């Protein structure tokens, strides 16, 4: 990247507002970023708790702990909370913290809307929790037992908890769209003089593409769940064949959102890796232009391959063939990004602090998840794999490394900048190894369970699947509990630790490393000039 000329000393520390004004009415991108991250951390534990109940139930064949409807609700909630409550807000938190600092802007383009985008989230989370709690009360109706995909006709028949969830999804959508608008406007209008789009940090590029994807697909999900609401209460038949509608219409609406959603979850983490790997390899990112091209290709092709989630639904041969070819083609630009990361490391002077450990683990495990994805892309093979544990293994191998570990890498990478303290490297490495090893022991056996015929989203299974389920569940307990160590590391770093320098990492480059650690409440009040 180009060198910078600071035209003003940014060391002045202006006063932050008092507590309620500061946090409830915040218009500061750093504080709003902190709020997003804290919210995401809380949701990570809630979503993780549902996963641990799921795995506890699946430890042995038979029904031991929860009844089937509650089990299906936990499966539904685990996905919804992790996707909408943990990963997306955490990525938005990283964006809020880092984008203005990286581009030399004093704040986001629309600071008050930024505040609104965050504070809608606790309301949405409350609605989602209510959807879980309501069935426990008399007259509360059935649990939401549809899975996160909410397919009708079951989702039309479920009790009133579904209405709470639909409202929650509307609120989540509003938050995402408003945040995306803010990010796009910030990146287009607020870059420092001399910072052209092709000199912009890669994390900003990934968020620019992610934000456009969100604006394109979240309204379609909103349309779909609104149609569901109308079918439930206003006598329409969008998804009712008897009334002239089609349940498969919902699937198309959902997955038109659902497939780009996985790139929305992935791209910010790719952006984090695009900073972490060059820093700890002490080499510039290989192939900046091709990375930009690859992520644009991923976003574009990713918009037109949605029905690979629906191969078994009865589409024509021509339709499934088209989606298969598109799905296989998309592995090329994704692979290109991975190759660029490897080329960045090639002949680099590498050190393996925790962010870099996560980065290397991501490259290995995400690639592995991508390979099972290519298997799933093949239509006749997917007739066997669809709705089996093989799919569960695949998406956990792409989403955990591809999204969650990327966010962990970003948190360890930028925590010293945010807090002014170094985290405990020894504890962080213990967290990394415990987390990654237990993750692999949890999900790798699930490939074999799926290939052997174990379906997904079931509370009970044939006794022949017992051993791998025992192994997976035992490792899942370790995996879940290991996140308590992450919580401890984050809290202890916020509270104190070795003082961090402005340029925390030797190989780090970018405007954000010119600022103090922690940065002032207002930074870049005078824009730097990029040469």
């Amino acid at each position, binding site marked *: 990247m180009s060198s910078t000329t600071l035209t003003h000393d940014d060391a002045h520390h202006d006063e932050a507002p008092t507590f309620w004004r500061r946090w409830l009415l915040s*218009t*500061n991108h750093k504080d709003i970023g902190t709020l997003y991250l804290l919210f995401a951390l809380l949701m990570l534990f809630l979503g993780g708790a549902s996963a641990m109940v799921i795995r506890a139930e699946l430890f042995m064949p038979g029904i031991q702990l929860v009844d089937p409807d509650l089990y299906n609700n936990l499966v539904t909630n685990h996905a919804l909370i992790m996707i909408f409550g943990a990963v997306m807000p955490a990525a938005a938190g990283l964006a809020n913290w880092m984008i203005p600092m990286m581009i030399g802007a*004093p*704040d986001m*383009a*629309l*600071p*008050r*809307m930024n505040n609104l985008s965050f504070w809608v989230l606790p309301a949405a989370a409350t609605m989602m929790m209510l959807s879980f709690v309501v069935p426990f009360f008399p007259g509360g109706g059935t649990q939401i037992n549809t899975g996160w995909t909410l397919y009708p006709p079951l989702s039309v028949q479920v009790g009133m908890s579904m209405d709470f969830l639909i409202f929650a999804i509307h609120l989540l959508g509003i938050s995402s*769209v408003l945040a*995306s*608008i*803010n990010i*796009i*406007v910030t990146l*287009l*209008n*607020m870059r420092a003089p001399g910072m052209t789009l092709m000199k912009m940090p890669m994390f900003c590029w990934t968020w620019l593409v992610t934000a456009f994807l969100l*604006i*394109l697909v*979240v*309204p*379609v999900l*909103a*349309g*779909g769940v609104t*149609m569901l609401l109308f079918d439930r209460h206003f006598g329409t038949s*969008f998804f009712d064949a008897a009334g002239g509608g*089609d349940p*498969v*219409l919902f699937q*198309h*609406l959902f997955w*038109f959102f659902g497939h780009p959603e996985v790139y929305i979850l992935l791209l910010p983490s790719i952006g984090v890796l695009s900073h972490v790997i060059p820093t700890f390899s002490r080499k510039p990112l290989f192939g900046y232009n091709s990375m930009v091209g690859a992520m644009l290709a991923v976003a574009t092709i990713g918009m037109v391959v949605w029905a690979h989630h629906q191969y078994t639904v*009865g*589409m*024509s041969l*021509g*339709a499934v063939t088209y989606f298969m070819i598109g799905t296989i083609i998309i592995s090329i630009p994704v692979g290109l990004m991975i190759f660029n990361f490897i080329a960045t490391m090639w002949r680099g002077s590498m050190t393996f602090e925790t962010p870099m450990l996560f980065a290397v683990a991501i490259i290995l495990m995400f690639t592995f998840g991508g390979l099972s994805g290519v298997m799933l892309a093949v239509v006749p093979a997917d007739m066997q794999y669809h709705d089996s544990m093989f799919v569960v293994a695949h998406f956990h191998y792409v989403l955990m490394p591809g999204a969650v570990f990327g966010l962990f890498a970003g948190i360890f990478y930028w925590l010293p900048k945010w807090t002014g303290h170094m985290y405990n490297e020894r504890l962080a490495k213990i967290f990394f190894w415990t987390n990654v090893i237990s993750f692999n022991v949890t999900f790798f056996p699930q490939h074999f369970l799926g290939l052997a015929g174990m379906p997904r989203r079931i509370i009970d299974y044939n006794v022949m699947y017992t051993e791998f389920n025992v192994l997976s569940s035992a490792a899942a307990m370790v995996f879940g509990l290991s996140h308590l160590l992450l919580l401890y590391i984050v809290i202890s770093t916020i509270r104190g630790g070795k003082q961090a320098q402005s340029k925390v990492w030797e190989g780090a480059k970018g405007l954000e490393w010119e600022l103090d650690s922690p940065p002032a409440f*207002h930074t870049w*009040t005078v824009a730097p000039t990029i040469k």
Partner: protein
Amino acid sequence: MTQQSPELRRKNIGIALLLAGFALLVFFTSVPFWQGITRIIGNQAGG
């Protein structure tokens, strides 16, 4: 809150309104568009 120049503020709000309008357009047109697509794919499957 740091102050923006009136010109920058106008540009920011203008682009934001454009993007919001586009999101609303996608929301409202999703119903007939997707009904049509489903009909086409369904007809192909039916022969």
